[in-house]
Protein backbone atom coordinates (compact mmCIF):
# COMPACT_ATOMS: atom_id res chain seq x y z
CA UNK A 1 0.00 0.00 0.00
CA UNK A 2 2.70 2.42 1.04
CA UNK A 3 5.01 1.39 -1.78
CA UNK A 4 2.26 1.83 -4.37
CA UNK A 5 1.87 5.37 -3.20
CA UNK A 6 5.61 5.87 -3.28
CA UNK A 7 5.79 4.75 -6.90
CA UNK A 8 2.85 6.98 -7.72
CA UNK A 9 4.61 9.93 -6.06
CA UNK A 10 7.71 9.17 -8.12
CA UNK A 11 5.73 9.32 -11.34
CA UNK A 12 3.99 12.54 -10.34
CA UNK A 13 7.28 14.09 -9.40
CA UNK A 14 8.90 13.01 -12.65
CA UNK A 15 6.09 14.52 -14.72
CA UNK A 16 6.10 17.76 -12.73
CA UNK A 17 9.85 18.17 -13.06
CA UNK A 18 9.63 17.72 -16.81
CA UNK A 19 6.83 20.30 -16.93
CA UNK A 20 8.95 22.69 -14.90
CA UNK A 21 11.84 22.31 -17.30
CA UNK A 22 9.56 22.91 -20.27
CA UNK A 23 8.19 26.06 -18.64
CA UNK A 24 11.77 27.13 -18.00
CA UNK A 25 12.69 27.11 -21.65
CA UNK A 26 9.31 28.50 -22.73
CA UNK A 27 10.69 32.04 -22.94
CA UNK A 28 13.27 30.92 -25.49
CA UNK A 29 10.61 29.02 -27.40
CA UNK A 30 8.39 32.09 -27.61
CA UNK A 31 11.14 34.47 -28.70
CA UNK A 32 12.05 32.03 -31.45
CA UNK A 33 8.42 31.42 -32.38
CA UNK A 34 7.68 35.14 -32.60
CA UNK A 35 10.62 35.64 -34.89
CA UNK A 36 9.78 32.57 -36.98
CA UNK A 37 6.17 33.61 -37.50
CA UNK A 38 7.12 37.18 -38.38
CA UNK A 39 9.63 35.80 -40.89
CA UNK A 40 7.24 33.21 -42.27
CA UNK A 41 4.56 35.80 -43.07
CA UNK A 42 6.81 38.79 -43.63
CA UNK A 43 9.22 37.19 -46.07
CA UNK A 44 6.31 36.11 -48.27
CA UNK A 45 6.15 39.72 -49.41
CA UNK A 46 9.52 39.37 -51.11
CA UNK A 47 8.38 36.63 -53.47
CA UNK A 48 7.01 39.35 -55.66
CA UNK A 49 8.27 42.54 -54.13
CA UNK A 50 11.91 43.54 -53.96
CA UNK A 51 13.36 43.79 -50.43
CA UNK A 52 15.32 46.85 -51.54
CA UNK A 53 12.18 48.60 -52.68
CA UNK A 54 10.67 47.73 -49.29
CA UNK A 55 13.58 49.00 -47.23
CA UNK A 56 14.47 52.06 -49.31
CA UNK A 57 11.20 52.91 -51.00
CA UNK A 58 9.86 56.32 -50.09
CA UNK A 59 6.22 55.68 -50.85
CA UNK A 60 3.79 53.68 -48.74
CA UNK A 61 0.76 53.19 -50.97
CA UNK A 62 -0.37 49.69 -50.03
CA UNK A 63 -3.72 49.70 -51.80
CA UNK A 64 -3.06 51.56 -55.02
CA UNK A 65 -2.41 49.78 -58.32
CA UNK A 66 0.35 48.83 -58.45
CA UNK A 67 0.94 49.02 -54.69
CA UNK A 68 4.09 50.50 -53.25
CA UNK A 69 5.49 49.23 -49.96
CA UNK A 70 8.39 51.58 -49.17
CA UNK A 71 8.80 51.84 -45.40
CA UNK A 72 11.09 54.87 -45.34
CA UNK A 73 8.26 57.26 -44.43
CA UNK A 74 7.11 54.95 -41.63
CA UNK A 75 10.63 54.37 -40.36
CA UNK A 76 11.29 58.10 -40.38
CA UNK A 77 7.94 58.68 -38.72
CA UNK A 78 8.95 56.37 -35.87
CA UNK A 79 12.43 57.92 -35.68
CA UNK A 80 11.15 61.51 -35.61
CA UNK A 81 8.54 60.84 -32.96
CA UNK A 82 11.01 58.80 -30.90
CA UNK A 83 13.80 61.37 -31.11
CA UNK A 84 11.40 64.14 -30.19
CA UNK A 85 10.17 62.23 -27.18
CA UNK A 86 13.67 61.34 -26.01
CA UNK A 87 14.76 64.97 -26.20
CA UNK A 88 11.85 65.82 -23.94
CA UNK A 89 11.97 62.76 -21.71
CA UNK A 90 15.65 62.47 -20.84
CA UNK A 91 16.21 65.83 -19.14
CA UNK A 92 12.87 65.65 -17.34
CA UNK A 93 13.39 62.01 -16.41
CA UNK A 94 16.91 62.56 -15.10
CA UNK A 95 15.75 65.59 -13.14
CA UNK A 96 12.78 63.77 -11.65
CA UNK A 97 14.84 60.68 -10.83
CA UNK A 98 17.40 62.78 -8.98
CA UNK A 99 14.69 64.71 -7.19
CA UNK A 100 12.72 61.61 -6.18
CA UNK A 101 15.77 59.55 -5.27
CA UNK A 102 18.05 62.10 -3.66
CA UNK A 103 16.35 65.37 -2.84
CA UNK A 104 12.70 64.88 -1.92
CA UNK A 105 11.79 64.35 1.75
CA UNK A 106 10.57 60.85 2.50
CA UNK A 107 6.84 61.62 2.67
CA UNK A 108 6.94 63.40 -0.68
CA UNK A 109 9.06 60.67 -2.21
CA UNK A 110 6.39 58.07 -1.45
CA UNK A 111 3.68 60.22 -3.03
CA UNK A 112 5.79 60.90 -6.11
CA UNK A 113 6.67 57.23 -6.54
CA UNK A 114 3.04 56.17 -6.18
CA UNK A 115 2.05 58.77 -8.78
CA UNK A 116 4.66 57.53 -11.23
CA UNK A 117 3.49 53.95 -10.60
CA UNK A 118 -0.08 55.03 -11.27
CA UNK A 119 1.05 56.59 -14.53
CA UNK A 120 2.67 53.29 -15.47
CA UNK A 121 -0.62 51.52 -14.84
CA UNK A 122 -2.67 53.77 -17.16
CA UNK A 123 -3.27 51.87 -20.40
CA UNK A 124 -1.89 53.32 -23.59
CA UNK A 125 -5.36 53.58 -25.09
CA UNK A 126 -6.54 55.79 -22.21
CA UNK A 127 -3.59 58.15 -22.63
CA UNK A 128 -4.31 58.19 -26.35
CA UNK A 129 -7.89 59.21 -25.71
CA UNK A 130 -6.91 61.85 -23.15
CA UNK A 131 -4.22 63.13 -25.52
CA UNK A 132 -6.77 63.37 -28.28
CA UNK A 133 -9.15 65.52 -26.23
CA UNK A 134 -6.59 67.66 -24.36
CA UNK A 135 -3.11 67.68 -25.87
CA UNK A 136 -4.05 67.75 -29.55
CA UNK A 137 -6.19 70.92 -29.34
CA UNK A 138 -3.56 72.51 -27.12
CA UNK A 139 -0.75 71.84 -29.62
CA UNK A 140 -2.92 73.17 -32.43
CA UNK A 141 -3.54 76.39 -30.53
CA UNK A 142 -0.04 76.96 -29.18
CA UNK A 143 1.75 76.40 -32.48
CA UNK A 144 -1.01 77.89 -34.66
CA UNK A 145 -1.36 74.74 -36.75
CA UNK A 146 -4.15 73.53 -38.96
CA UNK A 147 -4.29 70.32 -36.98
CA UNK A 148 -2.88 69.23 -33.66
CA UNK A 149 -2.49 65.66 -34.88
CA UNK A 150 1.27 65.98 -35.37
CA UNK A 151 4.58 64.38 -34.56
CA UNK A 152 5.13 66.84 -31.73
CA UNK A 153 1.91 65.75 -30.00
CA UNK A 154 3.07 62.15 -30.30
CA UNK A 155 6.51 63.04 -28.95
CA UNK A 156 5.08 64.82 -25.93
CA UNK A 157 2.69 61.99 -25.16
CA UNK A 158 5.36 59.33 -25.61
CA UNK A 159 7.82 61.23 -23.44
CA UNK A 160 5.15 61.20 -20.77
CA UNK A 161 4.53 57.48 -21.25
CA UNK A 162 8.24 56.63 -21.08
CA UNK A 163 8.61 58.46 -17.75
CA UNK A 164 7.77 55.56 -15.42
CA UNK A 165 10.40 53.35 -17.10
CA UNK A 166 13.05 56.06 -17.16
CA UNK A 167 12.45 57.53 -13.71
CA UNK A 168 12.19 54.27 -11.80
CA UNK A 169 15.16 52.65 -13.53
CA UNK A 170 17.34 55.71 -13.05
CA UNK A 171 16.34 55.87 -9.44
CA UNK A 172 17.39 52.22 -9.09
CA UNK A 173 20.71 53.07 -10.70
CA UNK A 174 21.26 55.94 -8.25
CA UNK A 175 20.30 53.76 -5.31
CA UNK A 176 22.79 51.11 -6.46
CA UNK A 177 25.70 53.52 -5.94
CA UNK A 178 27.44 52.42 -2.73
CA UNK A 179 26.64 54.84 0.07
CA UNK A 180 30.34 55.04 0.93
CA UNK A 181 30.77 57.19 -2.23
CA UNK A 182 28.20 59.63 -0.97
CA UNK A 183 29.58 59.78 2.56
CA UNK A 184 33.10 60.16 1.22
CA UNK A 185 32.13 63.20 -0.82
CA UNK A 186 30.12 64.75 1.99
CA UNK A 187 32.99 64.16 4.40
CA UNK A 188 35.22 66.15 2.03
CA UNK A 189 32.88 69.10 2.42
CA UNK A 190 30.91 68.85 -0.81
CA UNK A 191 27.35 70.15 -0.86
CA UNK A 192 24.55 67.67 -1.62
CA UNK A 193 24.33 68.91 -5.17
CA UNK A 194 28.12 68.67 -5.70
CA UNK A 195 27.96 65.13 -4.37
CA UNK A 196 25.16 64.22 -6.75
CA UNK A 197 26.73 65.93 -9.74
CA UNK A 198 30.34 64.85 -9.33
CA UNK A 199 30.00 61.49 -7.59
CA UNK A 200 26.55 59.94 -7.87
CA UNK A 201 25.76 60.68 -11.51
CA UNK A 202 29.08 59.42 -12.94
CA UNK A 203 28.85 56.30 -10.79
CA UNK A 204 25.28 55.63 -11.93
CA UNK A 205 25.86 56.48 -15.59
CA UNK A 206 25.72 52.91 -16.90
CA UNK A 207 22.38 52.22 -15.28
CA UNK A 208 21.02 55.57 -16.41
CA UNK A 209 22.05 54.84 -19.97
CA UNK A 210 20.24 51.50 -19.72
CA UNK A 211 17.17 53.39 -18.51
CA UNK A 212 17.28 55.64 -21.56
CA UNK A 213 17.68 52.63 -23.86
CA UNK A 214 14.68 50.88 -22.36
CA UNK A 215 12.76 54.13 -22.58
CA UNK A 216 13.53 54.29 -26.28
CA UNK A 217 12.47 50.66 -26.65
CA UNK A 218 9.16 51.45 -24.97
CA UNK A 219 8.59 54.52 -27.16
CA UNK A 220 9.38 52.84 -30.49
CA UNK A 221 7.03 49.98 -29.69
CA UNK A 222 4.19 52.15 -28.44
CA UNK A 223 1.17 51.79 -30.64
CA UNK A 224 -2.28 52.94 -29.65
CA UNK A 225 -1.62 56.40 -28.27
CA UNK A 226 0.67 57.20 -31.18
CA UNK A 227 -1.85 56.02 -33.71
CA UNK A 228 -4.53 58.21 -32.18
CA UNK A 229 -2.65 61.48 -32.00
CA UNK A 230 0.00 61.69 -34.72
CA UNK A 231 -2.35 62.11 -37.64
CA UNK A 232 -1.27 59.01 -39.60
CA UNK A 233 -0.16 60.64 -42.84
CA UNK A 234 2.37 58.39 -44.48
CA UNK A 235 4.52 61.10 -46.01
CA UNK A 236 8.19 61.69 -45.35
CA UNK A 237 8.27 63.97 -42.32
CA UNK A 238 10.15 67.25 -42.64
CA UNK A 239 9.24 68.81 -39.32
CA UNK A 240 7.79 67.94 -35.94
CA UNK A 241 4.78 70.10 -36.70
CA UNK A 242 3.23 67.84 -39.30
CA UNK A 243 1.28 64.61 -39.16
CA UNK A 244 3.39 61.45 -39.34
CA UNK A 245 2.74 57.75 -39.32
CA UNK A 246 4.84 55.32 -37.32
CA UNK A 247 5.54 51.67 -38.07
CA UNK A 248 3.47 50.48 -35.12
CA UNK A 249 0.50 52.64 -36.07
CA UNK A 250 0.65 51.37 -39.63
CA UNK A 251 0.41 47.76 -38.52
CA UNK A 252 -2.41 48.44 -36.09
CA UNK A 253 -4.40 50.64 -38.44
CA UNK A 254 -4.11 48.61 -41.61
CA UNK A 255 -4.21 45.00 -40.44
CA UNK A 256 -7.97 45.22 -40.07
CA UNK A 257 -8.40 45.99 -43.76
CA UNK A 258 -5.60 43.91 -45.23
CA UNK A 259 -6.80 40.71 -46.88
CA UNK A 260 -5.23 37.64 -45.33
CA UNK A 261 -2.54 36.29 -47.65
CA UNK A 262 -2.29 39.46 -49.72
CA UNK A 263 0.94 41.39 -50.21
CA UNK A 264 -0.48 44.12 -48.03
CA UNK A 265 -0.96 41.59 -45.21
CA UNK A 266 2.57 40.25 -45.66
CA UNK A 267 4.04 43.75 -45.78
CA UNK A 268 2.63 44.51 -42.32
CA UNK A 269 4.43 41.44 -40.96
CA UNK A 270 7.57 42.64 -42.73
CA UNK A 271 7.26 45.89 -40.76
CA UNK A 272 6.91 43.68 -37.70
CA UNK A 273 10.28 42.08 -38.50
CA UNK A 274 11.92 45.50 -38.66
CA UNK A 275 10.33 46.51 -35.35
CA UNK A 276 11.31 43.24 -33.71
CA UNK A 277 14.93 43.57 -34.78
CA UNK A 278 15.14 47.18 -33.62
CA UNK A 279 13.68 46.48 -30.18
CA UNK A 280 15.75 43.30 -29.86
CA UNK A 281 18.93 45.31 -30.47
CA UNK A 282 17.86 48.04 -28.04
CA UNK A 283 17.06 45.54 -25.30
CA UNK A 284 20.31 43.68 -25.73
CA UNK A 285 22.20 46.96 -25.48
CA UNK A 286 20.29 47.91 -22.35
CA UNK A 287 20.96 44.49 -20.82
CA UNK A 288 24.64 44.99 -21.61
CA UNK A 289 24.71 48.30 -19.72
CA UNK A 290 22.83 46.79 -16.79
CA UNK A 291 25.28 43.89 -16.61
CA UNK A 292 28.17 46.28 -16.73
CA UNK A 293 26.68 48.11 -13.80
CA UNK A 294 26.24 44.97 -11.72
CA UNK A 295 29.81 43.92 -12.42
CA UNK A 296 31.34 47.33 -11.66
Amino acid at each position, binding site marked *: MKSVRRIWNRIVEFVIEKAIFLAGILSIVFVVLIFVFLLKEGLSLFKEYSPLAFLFGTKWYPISHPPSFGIVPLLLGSVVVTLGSIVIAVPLGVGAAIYVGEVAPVWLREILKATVEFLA*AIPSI*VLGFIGLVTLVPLVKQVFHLQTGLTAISGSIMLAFMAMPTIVSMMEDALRAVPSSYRYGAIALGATRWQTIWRVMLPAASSGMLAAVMLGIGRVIGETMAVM*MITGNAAGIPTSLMQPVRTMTATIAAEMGEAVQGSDHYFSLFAIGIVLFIITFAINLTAAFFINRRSKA
Partner: protein
Amino acid sequence: MKLDARLTEKVVFFLLLLATLVIVVPVFLIAGLIVKNGFAALSWEFLTQSPRLGMRAGGIFPAIVGTMYLVFGTAVFALPAGIFAAVYLCEYAKESRLTRIIDVAIVNLAGVPSVVYGLFGLGLFVVFLKFGTSILSGSLTLAIMSLPVIVTASREALNSVPQSFREVSLALGATRWQTISRVVLPNALPGIITGAILAISRAAGETAPILFTVAAFYLPRLPQTLFDQCMALPYHLYVISTQVPNLKPHIQYGTTLVLILMILIMNLTAVFIRAHFRKKKQW
Protein backbone atom coordinates in the same frame (compact mmCIF):
# COMPACT_ATOMS: atom_id res chain seq x y z
CA MET B 1 32.73 80.50 -3.09
CA LYS B 2 30.94 78.62 -0.32
CA LEU B 3 27.89 80.86 -0.69
CA ASP B 4 27.97 80.33 -4.42
CA ALA B 5 27.82 76.57 -4.02
CA ARG B 6 24.82 76.86 -1.69
CA LEU B 7 23.04 79.17 -4.10
CA THR B 8 23.71 76.86 -7.04
CA GLU B 9 22.33 74.00 -5.02
CA LYS B 10 19.14 75.90 -4.24
CA VAL B 11 18.59 76.81 -7.87
CA VAL B 12 19.32 73.32 -9.13
CA PHE B 13 17.07 71.65 -6.58
CA PHE B 14 14.29 74.03 -7.59
CA LEU B 15 14.76 73.07 -11.24
CA LEU B 16 14.68 69.39 -10.32
CA LEU B 17 11.44 69.94 -8.44
CA LEU B 18 10.06 71.68 -11.51
CA ALA B 19 10.98 68.72 -13.73
CA THR B 20 9.25 66.38 -11.31
CA LEU B 21 6.14 68.53 -11.23
CA VAL B 22 5.97 68.60 -15.04
CA ILE B 23 5.63 64.83 -14.89
CA VAL B 24 3.47 64.47 -11.82
CA VAL B 25 0.97 67.29 -12.19
CA PRO B 26 -0.46 66.04 -15.52
CA VAL B 27 -1.04 62.67 -13.89
CA PHE B 28 -3.27 64.30 -11.30
CA LEU B 29 -4.98 66.40 -13.96
CA ILE B 30 -5.68 63.30 -16.05
CA ALA B 31 -6.99 61.41 -13.05
CA GLY B 32 -9.19 64.36 -12.13
CA LEU B 33 -10.51 64.72 -15.66
CA ILE B 34 -11.42 61.05 -15.92
CA VAL B 35 -13.04 60.88 -12.52
CA LYS B 36 -15.03 64.09 -12.96
CA ASN B 37 -16.37 63.33 -16.42
CA GLY B 38 -16.50 59.61 -15.94
CA PHE B 39 -18.65 59.57 -12.82
CA ALA B 40 -21.26 61.61 -14.60
CA ALA B 41 -21.60 58.81 -17.13
CA LEU B 42 -21.77 55.94 -14.67
CA SER B 43 -25.19 54.51 -14.15
CA TRP B 44 -26.75 51.10 -13.67
CA GLU B 45 -27.82 51.17 -17.28
CA PHE B 46 -24.31 52.03 -18.47
CA LEU B 47 -22.81 49.12 -16.62
CA THR B 48 -25.41 46.49 -17.45
CA GLN B 49 -26.62 47.14 -20.99
CA SER B 50 -25.29 46.70 -24.49
CA PRO B 51 -24.38 49.67 -26.64
CA ARG B 52 -27.21 50.99 -28.78
CA LEU B 53 -27.64 53.35 -31.72
CA GLY B 54 -24.16 52.68 -33.15
CA MET B 55 -22.52 52.97 -29.70
CA ARG B 56 -24.01 56.41 -29.16
CA ALA B 57 -26.23 55.22 -26.35
CA GLY B 58 -26.70 52.32 -24.00
CA GLY B 59 -23.98 50.74 -21.91
CA ILE B 60 -20.74 48.84 -22.10
CA PHE B 61 -21.74 45.58 -20.42
CA PRO B 62 -20.40 43.22 -23.16
CA ALA B 63 -17.05 45.01 -23.11
CA ILE B 64 -16.76 44.68 -19.32
CA VAL B 65 -17.58 40.99 -19.48
CA GLY B 66 -15.20 40.50 -22.41
CA THR B 67 -12.32 42.11 -20.56
CA MET B 68 -13.05 39.91 -17.55
CA TYR B 69 -12.94 36.81 -19.73
CA LEU B 70 -9.63 37.92 -21.21
CA VAL B 71 -8.15 38.66 -17.78
CA PHE B 72 -9.26 35.27 -16.57
CA GLY B 73 -7.96 33.51 -19.68
CA THR B 74 -4.62 35.31 -19.44
CA ALA B 75 -4.25 34.29 -15.80
CA VAL B 76 -5.09 30.66 -16.54
CA PHE B 77 -2.40 30.40 -19.20
CA ALA B 78 0.26 32.74 -17.87
CA LEU B 79 0.27 31.90 -14.16
CA PRO B 80 1.28 28.23 -14.24
CA ALA B 81 3.76 28.79 -17.06
CA GLY B 82 5.31 31.82 -15.38
CA ILE B 83 5.53 30.29 -11.92
CA PHE B 84 6.94 27.01 -13.23
CA ALA B 85 9.49 28.88 -15.32
CA ALA B 86 10.60 30.81 -12.24
CA VAL B 87 10.76 27.58 -10.23
CA TYR B 88 12.99 26.09 -12.90
CA LEU B 89 15.32 29.08 -12.88
CA CYS B 90 15.51 29.46 -9.09
CA GLU B 91 15.20 25.91 -7.82
CA TYR B 92 16.39 23.51 -10.50
CA ALA B 93 18.77 25.12 -12.96
CA LYS B 94 22.37 25.57 -12.07
CA GLU B 95 23.90 28.63 -13.65
CA SER B 96 24.84 27.63 -17.18
CA ARG B 97 24.77 28.80 -20.76
CA LEU B 98 21.13 27.70 -20.94
CA THR B 99 20.07 29.89 -18.02
CA ARG B 100 21.89 32.85 -19.53
CA ILE B 101 20.06 32.35 -22.82
CA ILE B 102 16.78 32.13 -20.91
CA ASP B 103 17.61 35.42 -19.18
CA VAL B 104 18.24 37.10 -22.52
CA ALA B 105 15.00 35.66 -23.88
CA ILE B 106 13.02 37.01 -20.92
CA VAL B 107 14.51 40.47 -21.28
CA ASN B 108 13.64 40.49 -24.96
CA LEU B 109 10.12 39.15 -24.52
CA ALA B 110 9.57 42.01 -22.10
CA GLY B 111 10.70 44.46 -24.77
CA VAL B 112 8.76 43.18 -27.78
CA PRO B 113 6.26 45.88 -28.83
CA SER B 114 2.66 45.04 -28.01
CA VAL B 115 1.59 45.34 -31.63
CA VAL B 116 4.18 42.72 -32.59
CA TYR B 117 2.55 40.41 -30.05
CA GLY B 118 -0.64 41.13 -31.92
CA LEU B 119 0.97 40.10 -35.22
CA PHE B 120 2.37 36.98 -33.60
CA GLY B 121 -0.98 36.02 -32.11
CA LEU B 122 -2.60 36.56 -35.48
CA GLY B 123 0.01 34.47 -37.27
CA LEU B 124 0.21 31.61 -34.77
CA PHE B 125 -3.14 31.28 -33.00
CA VAL B 126 -5.67 32.82 -35.35
CA VAL B 127 -4.33 31.63 -38.71
CA PHE B 128 -1.84 28.78 -38.22
CA LEU B 129 -3.58 26.95 -35.37
CA LYS B 130 -6.99 28.00 -36.74
CA PHE B 131 -8.34 29.19 -33.38
CA GLY B 132 -9.81 32.10 -35.33
CA THR B 133 -10.42 35.54 -33.89
CA SER B 134 -11.41 34.29 -30.46
CA ILE B 135 -11.12 34.64 -26.71
CA LEU B 136 -8.69 31.71 -26.81
CA SER B 137 -6.35 33.42 -29.28
CA GLY B 138 -6.53 36.72 -27.40
CA SER B 139 -5.92 35.17 -23.99
CA LEU B 140 -2.95 33.20 -25.25
CA THR B 141 -1.45 36.29 -26.88
CA LEU B 142 -1.89 38.37 -23.73
CA ALA B 143 -0.54 35.49 -21.62
CA ILE B 144 2.69 35.31 -23.61
CA MET B 145 3.03 39.06 -23.29
CA SER B 146 2.59 38.84 -19.50
CA LEU B 147 4.96 35.89 -19.14
CA PRO B 148 8.25 37.79 -18.67
CA VAL B 149 6.76 40.03 -15.99
CA ILE B 150 5.30 37.10 -14.07
CA VAL B 151 8.56 35.13 -14.32
CA THR B 152 10.57 38.08 -13.05
CA ALA B 153 8.23 38.78 -10.13
CA SER B 154 8.05 35.09 -9.20
CA ARG B 155 11.82 34.78 -9.26
CA GLU B 156 12.14 37.65 -6.85
CA ALA B 157 9.59 36.06 -4.54
CA LEU B 158 11.30 32.66 -4.69
CA ASN B 159 14.72 34.14 -4.07
CA SER B 160 13.43 35.92 -0.98
CA VAL B 161 12.62 32.59 0.71
CA PRO B 162 15.61 31.85 2.96
CA GLN B 163 17.93 29.11 1.71
CA SER B 164 17.84 27.49 5.15
CA PHE B 165 14.15 26.56 4.69
CA ARG B 166 15.09 24.49 1.66
CA GLU B 167 17.99 22.81 3.41
CA VAL B 168 15.90 21.93 6.45
CA SER B 169 13.26 20.31 4.31
CA LEU B 170 15.83 18.41 2.25
CA ALA B 171 17.63 17.34 5.41
CA LEU B 172 14.40 15.80 6.67
CA GLY B 173 14.32 13.54 3.65
CA ALA B 174 12.06 15.55 1.35
CA THR B 175 12.65 15.32 -2.39
CA ARG B 176 13.25 18.49 -4.34
CA TRP B 177 9.67 18.79 -5.49
CA GLN B 178 8.32 18.07 -2.00
CA THR B 179 10.54 20.86 -0.70
CA ILE B 180 9.34 23.25 -3.37
CA SER B 181 5.66 22.42 -3.03
CA ARG B 182 5.53 22.26 0.78
CA VAL B 183 7.99 24.92 1.89
CA VAL B 184 9.22 27.19 -0.89
CA LEU B 185 6.04 27.91 -2.85
CA PRO B 186 3.77 28.51 0.18
CA ASN B 187 6.25 31.07 1.49
CA ALA B 188 6.78 32.71 -1.90
CA LEU B 189 3.11 32.75 -2.86
CA PRO B 190 2.15 36.22 -1.61
CA GLY B 191 4.99 37.76 -3.61
CA ILE B 192 4.15 35.69 -6.66
CA ILE B 193 0.46 36.58 -6.53
CA THR B 194 1.22 40.27 -6.09
CA GLY B 195 3.49 40.31 -9.13
CA ALA B 196 1.11 38.23 -11.18
CA ILE B 197 -1.88 40.47 -10.49
CA LEU B 198 0.14 43.52 -11.51
CA ALA B 199 1.21 41.80 -14.74
CA ILE B 200 -2.30 40.70 -15.60
CA SER B 201 -3.76 44.11 -14.81
CA ARG B 202 -1.43 45.49 -17.46
CA ALA B 203 -2.70 42.92 -19.91
CA ALA B 204 -6.27 43.98 -19.14
CA GLY B 205 -5.57 47.46 -20.50
CA GLU B 206 -3.74 46.39 -23.64
CA THR B 207 -5.32 47.09 -27.01
CA ALA B 208 -2.78 46.30 -29.71
CA PRO B 209 -2.39 42.58 -28.91
CA ILE B 210 -6.15 41.99 -29.02
CA LEU B 211 -6.79 44.13 -32.05
CA PHE B 212 -6.42 41.27 -34.53
CA THR B 213 -6.79 38.29 -32.20
CA VAL B 214 -10.06 38.68 -30.35
CA ALA B 215 -11.71 42.07 -30.37
CA ALA B 216 -15.12 42.56 -31.85
CA PHE B 217 -16.17 46.00 -33.01
CA TYR B 218 -19.71 45.49 -31.84
CA LEU B 219 -21.18 42.31 -30.41
CA PRO B 220 -24.33 42.80 -28.39
CA ARG B 221 -24.55 39.22 -27.09
CA LEU B 222 -22.12 37.65 -24.70
CA PRO B 223 -19.61 35.09 -25.99
CA GLN B 224 -20.65 31.48 -25.49
CA THR B 225 -17.41 29.55 -26.02
CA LEU B 226 -13.66 30.05 -26.02
CA PHE B 227 -13.80 30.27 -29.80
CA ASP B 228 -16.12 33.28 -29.85
CA GLN B 229 -15.04 36.83 -30.37
CA CYS B 230 -15.76 39.30 -27.61
CA MET B 231 -15.77 43.03 -27.00
CA ALA B 232 -13.17 44.45 -24.64
CA LEU B 233 -12.97 47.76 -22.80
CA PRO B 234 -9.68 49.05 -24.28
CA TYR B 235 -10.72 48.24 -27.83
CA HIS B 236 -14.18 49.65 -27.24
CA LEU B 237 -12.60 52.88 -26.04
CA TYR B 238 -10.48 52.95 -29.19
CA VAL B 239 -13.53 52.45 -31.36
CA ILE B 240 -15.68 55.07 -29.70
CA SER B 241 -12.95 57.67 -29.55
CA THR B 242 -11.77 57.37 -33.15
CA GLN B 243 -14.34 55.61 -35.31
CA VAL B 244 -17.68 56.88 -34.14
CA PRO B 245 -18.45 60.49 -35.05
CA ASN B 246 -20.85 62.66 -33.08
CA LEU B 247 -20.58 60.69 -29.88
CA LYS B 248 -21.33 62.33 -26.56
CA PRO B 249 -17.98 62.43 -24.73
CA HIS B 250 -19.43 61.16 -21.47
CA ILE B 251 -19.60 57.62 -22.95
CA GLN B 252 -15.88 57.76 -23.68
CA TYR B 253 -15.07 59.07 -20.21
CA GLY B 254 -17.34 56.51 -18.62
CA THR B 255 -15.62 53.68 -20.48
CA THR B 256 -12.23 55.09 -19.51
CA LEU B 257 -13.24 55.33 -15.87
CA VAL B 258 -14.52 51.75 -15.78
CA LEU B 259 -11.32 50.47 -17.39
CA ILE B 260 -9.10 52.44 -15.01
CA LEU B 261 -11.15 51.34 -12.02
CA MET B 262 -10.83 47.68 -13.00
CA ILE B 263 -7.07 48.04 -13.26
CA LEU B 264 -6.88 50.04 -10.06
CA ILE B 265 -8.90 47.46 -8.14
CA MET B 266 -6.53 44.73 -9.30
CA ASN B 267 -3.51 46.84 -8.34
CA LEU B 268 -4.91 47.68 -4.93
CA THR B 269 -5.68 44.01 -4.32
CA ALA B 270 -2.05 43.25 -5.08
CA VAL B 271 -0.83 45.98 -2.74
CA PHE B 272 -3.18 44.75 -0.03
CA ILE B 273 -1.98 41.16 -0.36
CA ARG B 274 1.61 42.32 -0.15
CA ALA B 275 0.99 44.44 2.94
CA HIS B 276 -1.09 41.75 4.63
CA PHE B 277 1.51 39.03 4.26
CA ARG B 278 4.42 41.28 5.07
CA LYS B 279 2.80 41.87 8.42
CA LYS B 280 2.30 38.16 8.99
CA LYS B 281 5.72 37.16 7.78
CA GLN B 282 7.93 35.67 10.45
CA TRP B 283 11.21 35.73 8.60
